């Protein structure tokens, strides 16, 4: 790990100039694959399945971008990153985009020189605790030992939460979700804290998920989204509008099932513009007219991706909540395609 940070630093030093000028789109096209940074393994968001193929909610974003740009949803090289290595990997050009439950914050956007291209999951930090301890509120956690993934916004939120409530706690910093799970299950920490979606995903893999409760308090705003480097706005636009296309597709009822007939032409000009039968949006992006068709066909629209990977019918069982369309009382709101 330490090595990777160091090598990353060296790469930052060495490659930074190449990064600043070159167009990522040309690099990706020349390479024929998209290098996409994901987690080291969080079921539902990004994890290899039994066949060794990456799948999940974040993975679907990578695949959609690959489909839009390269015409092949499987032309993605997944690069597992930890909370600590992800930014160095992106800054150094090792990956073209990062889709790894990364919280959009001011300093990451402005100071670390990244460009968040939207929000694909509205999350918040929560706590998980064994049911047998009989704790029903995060305010009863004074003196608890808390496992946290290091290098994330969660450890800052945690420090703020306990400080503002005048409670003592003992942080146990842990490198990956898998190790945290092991420590938590062994009782080496009382509480595990991370984004509520991550808690649900982790709990789903337990032998007895019912023996653990997720406390009602959500102590922070965690808007998660894909991000790219500063300085290559064309590439940022592609990732941003691919995500928007997935969200808008759900809003307008474009699914992987009916997209074939919709591309024949519809009465709705917005759908026509998204699908490239009207206007020249694809050309403006530097892609062809069917970019969004391919992106949506890859894994379906946002709703389909959500339902398939983390929705209520999956073991993770997350409700749409804030992540419903704005028309359903959620926060998902794609700017217009025109």
């Amino acid at each position, binding site marked *: 790990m330490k090595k990777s940070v160091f090598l990353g630093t060296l790469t930052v030093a060495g490659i930074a*100039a190449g990064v600043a000028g070159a167009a990522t789109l040309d690099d990706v096209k020349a390479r024929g694959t998209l290098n996409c940074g994901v987690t080291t393994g969080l079921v539902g968001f990004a994890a290899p399945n039994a066949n060794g193929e990456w799948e999940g909610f974040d993975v679907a974003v990578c695949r959609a971008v690959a489909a839009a740009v390269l015409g092949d949803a499987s032309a993605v090289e997944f690069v597992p990153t930890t909370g600590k290595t992800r930014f160095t990997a992106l800054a150094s050009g090792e990956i073209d985009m990062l889709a790894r439950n990364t919280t959009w914050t001011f300093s990451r956007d402005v100071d670390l020189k990244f460009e968040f291209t939207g929000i694909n999951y509205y999350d918040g930090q929560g706590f998980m605790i064994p049911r047998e301890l009989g704790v029903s509120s995060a305010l009863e956690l004074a003196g608890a030992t808390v496992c946290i993934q290091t290098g994330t916004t969660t450890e800052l939120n945690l420090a703020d939460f306990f400080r503002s409530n005048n409670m003592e706690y003992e942080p146990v910093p842990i490198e990956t979700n898998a190790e945290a799970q092991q420590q938590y299950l062994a009782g080496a920490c009382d509480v595990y804290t991370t984004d509520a979606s991550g808690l649900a995903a982790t709990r789903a893999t337990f032998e007895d998920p019912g023996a653990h409760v997720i406390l009602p308090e959500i102590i922070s705003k965690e808007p998660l989204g894909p991000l790219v480097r500063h300085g290559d706005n064309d590439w940022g636009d592609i990732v941003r509008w691919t995500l928007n296309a997935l969200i808008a597709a759900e809003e307008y009822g474009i699914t992987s099932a009916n997209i074939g007939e919709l591309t024949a032409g519809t009465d709705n000009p917005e759908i026509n513009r998204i699908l490239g039968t009207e206007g020249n949006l694809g050309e403006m992006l530097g892609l062809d007219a069917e970019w969004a068709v391919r992106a949506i066909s890859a894994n379906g629209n946002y709703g389909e991706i959500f339902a398939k990977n983390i929705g209520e019918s999956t073991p993770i069982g997350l409700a749409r909540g804030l992540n419903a369309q704005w028309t359903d009382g959620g926060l998902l709101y794609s700017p217009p395609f025109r």
Partner: protein
Amino acid sequence: MATITDPPKGAFRLSMLINDTRYRSLTFQFIALFLLIALFAYLGSNLVANLRAAGLNISYEFLGEPAGYDINQTLIEYDSQSSHWRAAVAGVLNTLLVAFLACLTATILGTIAGVLRLSNNWLVRKLMAIYVEAFRNVPVLIWIIIIFTIMTAVLPAPRAFRGDEPEASMLFGAFAFTNRGVYTPLPIFGPGSSVVIAVFIASIVGVFAYRRYATKLLYDTGRLLPMGWPSLAILFVPTLLIYFILGRPIGLEYPELRGFNFSGGIQIRGSLIALWFALAIYTGAFIAENVRAGIQAISKGQTEAAASLGLRPGRIMNLVILPQALRVIIPPLISNYLNITKNSSLAIAVGYMDITGTLGGITLNQTGRAIETILLLMLFYLVISLGISALMNVYNNAVKLKER
């Protein structure tokens, strides 16, 4: 006919820089130096140019800003509002703590194992060989994780101590072994305790004075005073007397299960124990080999000569072999100490917040200042390592063979 020893003293010509052996080596050294400087200048300017192109700058201002995160084990006052610099210092102290503990333990383990590897007892000899080979040939990171995993899996969680019929109980009612670490009683220094401590320090000085006197007496008159029990008596009797006369001013605070965790007492965290033991047994195996090499470097004639003077085997080892072996053992021992210090950077594997964990981990991540923090990290390790080398070289000079 006189042979010309000196080359003719002609005027200096430029071609002499290549053709004249007196100048040639200097010329090439100068060229090499110039190329080296040019290379570094190029790398440096490349770095600066690229950073500027990427819109980044080198700045250490972040060190003064609040860190915002908590550290579980700190030897100095620290909270989440302290600066990144203070977090770095807390990390350095944690690094030094585990390095010191591991060096000490590794030396003891290594010396014992090294001496026992040369034992005449077949079983002991082979057991030590197994220890050395097993621990030396498996990476230290694996050992750190093995020990930590065993601790978390085997030892009970604090909640096992709860209830009327707990699954686990404290040793002597004072020590709790949990998977979060070991809790031991903490001495509480009441009024008058400084007197007790002063007496204890005086006793230590007394023991050294007695031993010096005994040695002097031995050399002057040949009379051999007993060493063992008078030393122990000088060390403990006065301190204990004062302790009880003053009405036991030093008390003990016992760890107690309160809420989620034990509180009170001293907590030695599982991460520290795992890192400490793993580094100690791993490096101990290397030190054992150094010790064995050092002892075997002393010719057998020395042992036989000492034996013929009538010395017992224990005294032969202590008075004849080890003092000579030390000069062979110390130099590689220094590099083993440096290895321990540097290997302690694996701490994050078990969540021990050393300098790599605080400055090179969380601070780097939260500020995104990769180049600055890595440079500072390198500087810290360099200073610590050079410091250890300097200290050990002083010791090496004290024990090395004095040639007159």
